[in-house]
């Protein structure tokens, strides 16, 4: 319906592509497109370069499968990290979130998903075999399971516990309970149960 109002095919194509990005609806796509039209060509050139290089220059760390631009990511390479601990997460973004707290100094392992039988995502679809290989090669004191607390994350954590515990390595799970800033009366049963079970000395 808007065909007559969009000046050129190039602009409408740009809007179409921007619209595909998450959280960018037709109005935002339009706003961005028109902004880019006004931006000097030098700037848009930089954007194009950044977009291309992100695909060409990034890869997965061969040890922990975090996003990196070289064979090994900065965390795996660093000698400042506590190499006796590995924190297992579902996605690279989870590493960002944990690093942001500054409270964890160990290593990571990214599974790139969680076990979801109904979607057909099983052990072979995740980086689980690589985690087990890693645990065989390097002596590790503790594996911290930091998968999400939904059903898939819990299943993944339970499965990993089952296959890692026999190796004699301590397996821990992030504390589950009430998020900061919540009201007790709105919390669901599972969260409250876990919060009560996991209570600690004040």
């Amino acid at each position: 319906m808007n065909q007559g109002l969009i000046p050129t095919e190039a602009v409408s194509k740009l809007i179409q592509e921007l619209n595909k990005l998450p959280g960018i609806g037709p109005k935002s796509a339009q706003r961005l497109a028109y902004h880019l039209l006004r931006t000097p060509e030098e700037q848009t050139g930089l954007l194009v370069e950044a977009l291309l290089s992100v695909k060409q220059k990034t890869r997965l760390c061969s040890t922990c499968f975090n996003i990196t631009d070289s064979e090994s990511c900065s965390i795996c390479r660093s000698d400042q990290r506590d190499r006796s601990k590995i924190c297992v997460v579902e996605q690279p973004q989870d590493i960002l979130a944990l690093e942001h707290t500054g409270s964890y100094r160990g290593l990571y392992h990214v599974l790139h998903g969680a076990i979801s039988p109904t979607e057909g995502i099983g052990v072979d679809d995740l980086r689980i075999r690589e985690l087990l290989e890693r645990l065989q090669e390097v002596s590790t004191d503790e594996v911290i399971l930091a998968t999400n607390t939904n059903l898939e994350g819990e299943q993944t954590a339970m499965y990993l516990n089952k296959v890692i515990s026999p190796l004699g390595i301590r397996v821990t799970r992030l504390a589950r309970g009430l998020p900061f800033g919540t009201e007790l009366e709105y919390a669901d049963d599972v969260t409250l149960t876990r919060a009560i079970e996991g209570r600690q000395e004040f």
Partner: protein
Amino acid sequence: MVEMSRPRTYQTEAIIIRKTKLGEADRILTLYTPHLGKLQAVAKGVRRPRSKLAGHLELLTHSLVSLARGRNLDTITGSQTINSFLSLKSDLELTSFGLYATELLDQFTADGIENYSLFQLLLQTMHNLCQGGDNELALRYFELHLLGSVGYRPQLQRCVACQSALEPVTSWFSPAAGGILCPNCRHSQPLTYPVSVSGLKVLRFLQSNDYRTASRLKITPELSRELEDITRNYIRYLLEREPKSAAWLDTLRK
């Protein structure tokens, strides 16, 4: 004829049996209800960290759900957990059984068809799995009664081909014929699975009794596997594919 306008909002008990992502923060949930059958609804914002609804709308949860009618799909406006089945979800094997049962239910039912006894069957099975009894037996019970409820009741009383009574010898289950073939008629079907004398007794017993009675059976691992072969292959034949969660059951067993 006067058309009653449906109320804008309504409430229903439901078990959440499936979920898919929608947009950035939403989900489409498949609910199985006592009186509205299977229904799809949008749960807005449940993938956001501070979502109040998310915990009450996890898979394998029995909830009282409030909905508002929408043009396409109805939207969930509230949910109160009746039973979170935490003991089920805290066990890897039990969760896999629960997901298998809900996947079968989802595959064998269509939207909007009320089937109160099927809702009860699912709910009861989830409770049964938490009792610590023979969980494989609970699953076989579920499968047989689900199949019966949706029109695929296995014919176990007589030979489906020649109608003769079944002798106490090994007979053969034919998915295509939907029942047992006597040794004489076995070759009338290309694909059959052996049913031992005990196997047939157990299948009949499960089919015609309530779970409390059926659960008193004590069966050997070999017999358990025989029964599983029969039901899983029959299901695979009817669905024309293996349920995705069946593969996970096998992985865990290894």
